[in-house]
């Protein structure tokens, strides 16, 4: 009797711990799920292993893309103790290069979740003080630190920050209308319905106004060698933006143009980025901005830039072709979108000068020229975009 109860308590502990692991791996499982999971286990019993697994899955997984994480976690947690060794191996720092296969990445993420966070060797008595100080100021420091100078840990922390960001572009009025008490057009349909409801009596008029919605967004992200570090970080940001709102298109360019929107739409950021690096063939290579913009203008601009799209061009403007043909294509791009915003990490330098030919060719045609090298600039981006611009003026003079 007591033995059975003890076993049950042990099982409950394990389930609790398993749920924590899943939570740490990014699955949205609240405390209530533990109770549900225990109830489910009680209902199906412990006789059949696969029933046990399906019961847990039914309760704990609510999205298709979470299923592989769950399955791997389940295998590791409930069956194969040797897998733990693999996990530890997966945690070891990888040689920097292409992001590996998504299947390989999942264990790494799980391993992070299952193992307790690595403790920095405590400095005896000062431990608590230090902790408090670190958590506050480290975030502060991260806000301002350049992506290119961050350590692996800092990058990981910033990635988590970037994933939560959004890009609220100011909404434009569209031609579709919506019921509004202060609208300008009379809503005859609603007025008449109200009138019929009142037995044909005269009722106040109902109105409609034009709806507002954010414009389509098209991002052109430079993934050449000089932009490598930034591009990797920004892809986390772009993944968040792509999944946050409708009508976002993301293309990368280096020596060629690649549309990665479909890959970025995958909800799981690791899988999405793995697919992106599979699709982008010119990663960390040279840059031919003019050629790529020409390809964009010819093949994509008419498909993506309808309905007053805003274009974000993320590039350092360092061009292998020395800006040849770039001015022409940049002008065409600027003319076919509602607003062209250039985000340039080089702007972080106080003494930035528009010397390189590529930058000089691009500058006259952009509406906004903004820095993008740390978390703070990305946060400010939303603010900068929300404010009225002077259309294509003053930027050359400022540079």
């Amino acid at each position, binding site marked *: 009797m007591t033995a059975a109860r003890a076993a049950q308590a042990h099982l409950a502990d394990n389930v609790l711990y398993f749920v924590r692991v899943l939570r740490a791996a990014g699955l949205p499982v609240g405390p209530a799920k533990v109770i549900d999971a225990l109830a489910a286990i009680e209902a199906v019993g412990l006789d059949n292993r696969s029933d046990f697994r399906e019961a847990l899955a039914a309760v704990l997984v609510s999205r298709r893309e979470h299923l592989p994480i769950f399955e791997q976690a389940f295998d590791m947690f409930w069956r194969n103790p040797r897998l733990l060794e693999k996990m530890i191996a997966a945690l070891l720092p990888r040689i920097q290069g292409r992001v590996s296969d998504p299947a390989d990445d999942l264990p790494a993420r799980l391993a992070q979740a299952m193992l307790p966070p690595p403790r920095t060797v405590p400095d005896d008595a000062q431990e608590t003080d230090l902790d408090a100080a670190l958590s506050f100021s480290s975030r502060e420091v991260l806000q301002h630190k350049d992506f290119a100078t961050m350590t692996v840990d800092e990058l990981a922390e910033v990635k988590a920050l970037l994933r939560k960001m959004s890009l609220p572009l100011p909404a434009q009025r569209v031609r579709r209308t919506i019921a509004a008490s202060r609208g300008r057009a009379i809503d005859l349909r609603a007025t*008449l319905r109200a009138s019929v409801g009142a037995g044909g009596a005269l009722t106040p008029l109902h109105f409609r106004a034009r709806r507002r919605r954010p414009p389509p967004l098209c991002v052109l992200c430079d993934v050449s060698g000089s932009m490598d570090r930034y591009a990797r970080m920004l892809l986390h940001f772009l993944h968040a933006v792509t999944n946050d709102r409708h009508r976002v298109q993301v293309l990368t360019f280096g020596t060629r143009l690649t549309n990665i929107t479909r890959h970025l739409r995958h909800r799981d950021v690791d899988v999405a980025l793995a697919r992106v690096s599979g699709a982008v063939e010119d990663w960390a290579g040279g840059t031919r901005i003019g050629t790529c913009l020409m390809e964009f203008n010819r093949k994509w601009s008419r*498909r993506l830039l*309808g309905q007053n799209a805003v274009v974000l061009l993320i590039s350092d403007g360092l061009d292998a072709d020395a800006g040849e043909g770039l001015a022409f294509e940049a002008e065409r791009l600027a003319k076919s979108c509602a607003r062209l915003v250039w985000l340039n990490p080089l702007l972080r330098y106080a003494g930035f000068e528009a010397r390189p030919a590529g930058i000089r060719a691009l500058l006259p045609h952009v509406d906004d020229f903004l820095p993008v090298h740390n978390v703070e600039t990305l946060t400010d981006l939303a603010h900068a975009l929300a404010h009225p611009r002077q259309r294509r003026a003053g930027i050359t003079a400022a540079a």
Partner: protein
Amino acid sequence: MATGGPRAARSLSGRKPRCVHRAVESRTHASRAPTVKQQHTPAQPPSNVDATLALLEQHDYVAERRLATAVFLALKLQRPLFLEGEAGVGKTEIAKVLAAGLARPLVRLQCYEGLDTAGAVYEWNYPRQMIEIRLAEAAGGVERGELSHDIFTTRFLLRRPLLQALSPEDGAPPVLLIDELDRADEPFEAYLLEVLSDYQVTIPELGTIRAHTPPVVVITSNRTREIHDAIKRRCLYHWVDYPDAARELAIVARKCPAASASLAREVVAFTQRLRTLDLFKSPGIAETLDWAEALVALDRITLDPQTVADTLGALLKYQDDVAAITPDVAARLVREAQAEQA
């Protein structure tokens, strides 16, 4: 707004709210496709791809076999046909030719941003409804439930293209052309899903209206934005490409018989060469035909560089493209086009 226009020609019986009735009449006729007025005895759809090809050819549409197959399948499987392609390659024309070939009325819905149910499906005739309410009031003893029941009947319904296509007044299922869907916004696309998969629309006050026989649906898109996969999934997809020289020549011969055979050959050879150049917008078939007609209007019987330079506006619609065809390039293209004839 369904206010009456001055065009109302016929007046109905001498009943009281005369102007309102006239308004209805003029409106209904204005929104109908012109072909509706002919009497239709729908022809049998073609029984195989060759018959489809012949049917299209009969009505001066020179189609490639792949397109004919797509059309045949659309008719046979009763699925919408989704046509995508550059401007001026004959997407809209297919719907017109199908309507003529199958002897069915053509109902055309031109899409634009903000297109809503009031423009695409139905609208209540508000002025008429208001008069009805006033009349009921004047008669006295209005009962609310009854009033709302009387007001929202088909008598007060203005039928827009989609509803016309699903419940045609004369019973013949028409050809429904949903033109340039990429110009409409996503909410309208989402609305179309119900129409395209079940051939039905729901009017809250009346209920669901379902087509007895589904119309032949042709959707076109210029690809100014991507249409959602959910729409495409319900349709047969066909990319309408530029024609090859032989087919384009056949088209010019059909559509612009005034051009001599040798001029037509030169025109086609020139346009085909033009499409191989790196242009922002290559000329479509519509442009080729325009150009051929322009040359006929100028009484030219053969191409020369000067004429080409003077009439380039019929072919190319972007200044950058026009500037790219310098006199040298034009002369070279003319030479090559004429050498091909010899």
